[in-house]
């Protein structure tokens, strides 16, 4: 342990161990019909957390698989009751998932109604999941934590989403800023509170490529009336520019928001991620994983076809003959999932961590421990509703 206080953050995770870990835990998850996923998630987080260090001190993830399983059981009962009732009432109203199939509008309405019935829980789960992650994160033996305000978050988030939708996305920076501020202002490290400073209007700088892409699409549309080919080319370029612009927005809004956070009024952060680098990782990594998958499935398909070509016109393939195919298929899926973590998830995290600097880490020494948080549903809602992303 170096005793310097330079405030450098470093990511030290390696490809081989994380691939092994992801592959083994993925395999165990498949073998246990999904039950092991709570432990798999826990072990992956332990590895990734411990890879991140500030001034040589590693983060620690203290969550357990058991509490995740228990939280999931609670969440599933709650959601089952809720969704069962909602579906029943929707069906009674003539909508629901058994809605009249030849009426497109009714189908659309029923899908959206089901979605809106679940949406508050998804937002609730987003906040709860972050709170749980923070509550199970320690640095130098001191707990992070977050206040319990998940419903407040869900309510505000819905308001922001509606506003952003109604303004055709123009108020997206406002949404990003206030939702992040809501969470940040309720986050703590020990007895020190995080605070989100800055202005939401400043996030428009990060939106510039989104607007350029939009502008090109509009320009292409207008031009298409006079010069169709030129209009189409500009429109297509604008379309891709728009999506790359979104990636740029995500990276640069993260940087702005991070650079305007303070901890305990003394510790500040400098994030200098490169949108280009991250895009490169995601695109190249994605291509690599896709290629590996294509090749692996092609080989499996070839082996399968070869093993059946000599069998003549007997009865269909027996279950015994199909078993290796299914096993091979599952093995490839698990391996591809692990590969995606090695090629995409971990490099992106590494990039973000390696481009973060913490100012005034000396002030951390004065921070005192906070009380343990029971963790409530321990990611249970996020798991049941499938929100929460890669790790």
């Amino acid at each position, binding site marked *: *342990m170096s*005793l310097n206080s330079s405030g450098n953050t470093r990511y*030290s*995770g*390696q490809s081989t161990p994380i691939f092994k870990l992801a592959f083994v835990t993925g395999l165990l998850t498949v073998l246990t019909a999904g039950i092991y996923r709570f432990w798999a998630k826990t*072990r992956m987080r*332990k*590895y990734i957390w*411990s*890879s991140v260090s500030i001034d040589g*001190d*590693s983060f*620690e993830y*203290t969550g*357990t698989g*058991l509490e995740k*399983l*228990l939280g999931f*059981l*609670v969440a*599933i*009962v709650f959601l*089952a*009751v809720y*969704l*069962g*009732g909602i579906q*029943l*009432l*929707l*069906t*009674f*109203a*003539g909508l*629901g*998932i*058994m*809605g*009249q*199939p*030849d009426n497109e509008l009714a189908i659309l309405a029923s899908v959206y109604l*089901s*979605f809106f019935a*679940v949406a508050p829980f998804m937002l609730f789960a987003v906040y709860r999941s972050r709170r749980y992650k923070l509550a*199970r994160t320690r*640095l*130098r*033996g*001191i*707990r992070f934590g977050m206040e319990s305000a998940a419903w407040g978050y869900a309510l505000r988030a819905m308001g922001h989403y509606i506003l952003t939708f109604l303004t055709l996305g123009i108020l997206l920076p406002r949404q990003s800023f206030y939702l992040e501020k809501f969470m940040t202002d309720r986050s703590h*490290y020990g007895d020190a509170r995080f605070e989100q400073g800055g202005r939401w209007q400043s996030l428009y700088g990060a939106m510039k490529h989104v607007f350029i892409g939009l502008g090109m699409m509009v320009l292409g549309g207008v031009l298409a009336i006079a010069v169709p080919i030129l209009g189409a080319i500009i429109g297509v370029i604008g379309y891709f520019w728009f999506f790359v612009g979104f990636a740029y927005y995500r990276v640069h809004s993260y940087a702005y928001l991070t650079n305007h956070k303070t901890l305990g009024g003394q510790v500040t952060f400098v994030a200098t991620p490169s949108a280009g680098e991250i895009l490169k990782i995601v695109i190249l990594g994605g291509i690599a994983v896709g290629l590996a998958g294509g090749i692996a499935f092609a080989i499996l398909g070839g082996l399968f076809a070869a093993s059946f070509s000599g069998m003549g016109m007997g009865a269909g393939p027996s279950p015994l003959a199909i078993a290796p195919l299914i096993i091979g298929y599952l093995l490839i899926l698990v391996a591809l999932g692990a590969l995606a973590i090695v090629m995409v998830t971990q490099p992106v995290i590494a990039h973000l961590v390696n481009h973060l600097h913490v100012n005034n880490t000396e002030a951390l*020494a*004065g921070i*005192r*421990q906070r*009380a*343990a948080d029971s963790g409530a549903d321990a990611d249970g809602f996020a798991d*049941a*509703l*499938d929100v929460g992303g890669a790790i």
Partner: protein
Amino acid sequence: MIGAAPIAATFFDGQTAQRHPVLVSVTSDGSGLILDLQTGVAPWLWPLTRLRALGDQAVVNALTLTLQSDSDDESPRDPARLVITDPDLMAWVRLSAPQLAKRDVRRGTATKIITRLALAVASIGVIVFVILPRMSDFLADRMPLETEVKFGRAVVSQMKYLLGAGKSGTLACNNPAGEAALNRMASRLMDGQELKYAISFSVLDHEMVNAFAAPGGQIIILRGLLDTSDTAEEVAAVLAHEIGHVEARDPTRLMLRAAGSAGIVSIVLGDVTGGSVIGIIGDQMLQTSYTRKAEAAADEFGLAMLQAAKVDSAAFADFFDKLSGLEDGFVPPEYLSSHPSTSARAARARDFAAAQTGTTPILTDAEWQALKGICKG
């Protein structure tokens, strides 16, 4: 071997985020580590038996140790951490601490898991088998007729899809002579009866031996039922039974319950919008698992209807006999197979038939042949 010379390490006390340099040495009997902060406080003793190392760590050139302890934490561990980087000391601890990788769980954890699991299963069971049926009954009685009819159309097209129709309607059998015979059978059964629903019959070209009632009054007969029946009365008896289900709103109840269960299944399987669950509902409809009570009531309704129409109910008994015959044979009977005790119901129909007088055939032979050929041309 680790000598007497103390080794420098880093200590976090679990109270503040301060990093404490610490000198670590092994006790003379080798049973623990002595942590000396050199601040004047007496050194701490960490016994090897309670020593735990953090698992799945990325850092390989350091070992983070903690102490098993009854704390409020998610795991029963002391909040303090000791980070050692000296390779010899790391090797010695790994070799000497007996339970370094042990995952401590609190007393009563197993009970807790079992309780929660039982609670989860029980509450979902209560929802599916107690609350949903009651809610379905309650709502079915209050559902507007037009919703029920609309609902029935959706069910029927779903059913056709499941039975293998590419587009709805392609399975429909509509030979004119057969339809005329079917209409004659329908009016013979229903004339003079006061029915709440406008009942309509249709035949689908499928070999399954089955007939089912959809919400709102549509009754679907599958060709297999006509093929298996020896007399028109057998078909009439089945139709009268199905009319009984429609009049009792059984299909509507079943559908509401299935929709509610589908909501639950969707969350357990993690399919929130419920897309893939529609199949489950259709399947459930094909299985038509009404309650025994509902079946018995529909039987009684059917027998009364046959009586009013002066149709011999012995055919109903014949049909049940044929079913139990099929049950013994190699073809599993689809129609009524999930229904309660076929032989008891046959006996009931036969008793009823014994008391019947003045019955007349429901269709002429020519009409019966026409009905059997409804799917031709």
